[in-house]
């Protein structure tokens, strides 16, 4: 289960924030819109050693017994994104970013994953005006 990956963009000056902020660091606006971001470039990666015993934490998150391949990705939107990456992805690869709901958790934690890019174009990005009272304005 995965969805297009989106960051937030300041309606007033175009600053791109991920994860979302409350006030824009550049112009102090609180008006943000959702901006889909399909692709990025892997700048660094690692394979994180698994923990000895799989267990659930009070937040609902799991400590995983599997190795996890993780990467820092310079997204086309300009922000750096930390994501789980598919096997075979290497430094310098162009990847397609996706957002996965984490099935193991009850809280709204979400997982960004990246697979090798297939060259598909960005989907049309809807504009969401999120006044301060409606914050946190998490991307769906």
């Amino acid at each position, binding site marked *: 289960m995965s969805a297009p990956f989106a960051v937030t963009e300041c309606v007033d000056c175009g600053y791109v924030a*991920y*994860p979302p*902020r409350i006030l824009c*660091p550049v112009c102090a606006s609180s008006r943000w819109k959702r901006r889909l971001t399909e692709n990025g470039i892997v*700048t*660094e*990666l*690692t*394979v*994180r*050693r698994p*923990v000895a015993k799989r267990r659930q*934490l*009070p*937040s609902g*998150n*799991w*400590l*995983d017994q599997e190795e*996890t391949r*993780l*990467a*820092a990705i310079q997204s086309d939107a300009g*922000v*750096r994104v*930390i*994501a*789980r990456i598919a096997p075979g992805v290497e430094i310098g690869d162009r990847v397609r970013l996706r957002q996965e709901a*984490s099935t*193991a*958790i009850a*809280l*709204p*934690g*979400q*997982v*960004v994953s990246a697979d090798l890019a297939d060259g598909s174009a960005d989907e049309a990005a809807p504009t969401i005006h999120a006044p301060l009272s409606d914050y946190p304005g*998490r991307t769906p």
Partner: protein
Amino acid sequence: MAEPLTRARIIGAAETPYERHPSTERRTETFIAEAVVAALHDAGISRDEVDGFGVASFSLAPDHAIDLTWKLGMTIRWVMEDTNGGASGINMLQHAIRAIEAGDAETIVLAAGDRMERREFHLMTDRYNRVSRDYMAPLPLNGPNALFAFLTERYGRAHGLAREDFACVPIAQRTWATRNPGAVYRAPMTLDDYMASLPIAPPLTRYDCVPIVSGGDAIVVTTEERAAKLGRPSVGVRAIRSIFNDENQDGNGIETGFARIRDPLWEAAGVGPEDMDAAFIYDDYPVMVLVQLGDLGMIPAMDVKRYVHKTLLEDLYPVNTSGGQLSAGQAGAAGGLHGLVESVQQLRGEAGERQVQGAELVLTTGYGMVLYTHGSSHNAAILERVA
């Protein structure tokens, strides 16, 4: 040499033994309390002379500074609680100095500590902040190692460093640790040991990651008048500079806020990097030792490769003489005071086998609080011996 620019003095410092697997009755408050009592003893003053208390801890909840104040039987007129992790020690010191100068308090104890077993460590990193809980932990990230693997890779690429070069940092610190009976790792480390150590999040291996321990640290700060009456050396603070969230996590994490506080720090202190007899750099990972030394102007011509092999390893220029957190251990928030405690011991000439002869002026730093991709909180102090 100019007079210290602040009128407060550090007159006591102590660290509890750092323990790998403490018994269940030794709680976070136990370690903090033991550090407070030991620091007061070291300062040669009684509990009832204390009128200010600051504490930093990841695991004190649901208690706060006031609960500890009560349990320690203190009546105080200044209190603070600091939540800035590796930057908490110097942050509390910055506040305490001004409180003492303003007369809001006369003698302040600053303490930090955590009972930190693997379970508590995972609880801490899982709920470090909302972004950690909602964006990082679900990956699952299992703590910050992967993020600092990225920074290590990035820094190595920028400065032409391989694992053999980064190795100089933990190996040199381990050499110092062999002279510190309080360090959890004291056996000398060879390059082969380092290269063969267990991968944690490549390029990081076990010896790039701090051993998790439980413990507490504390220092005592008071007026210069009062310090002068104690008849032993104390420690003056020439300057402290801090910066928080200087780039909204839009930077690369290897050119940091330390570069922005470098000039104001040295200018306020009236001395320069070449005047430092030792440095105590917040060492959550080897790469961050180099980032901070470089951004604060301590690495000549930014020839990092030469600096690690020649200055750190061959000349054994004193950086993190306790062995640092990489060898002595990281007791949660106590890591933010660990370098200050070691600084005070060195400047008073009480560092035993690892004493830096003639240590008069030192640099001490704090760094911490990953918001998303790297740390956000930076501070640095220039400390000096006052006879």
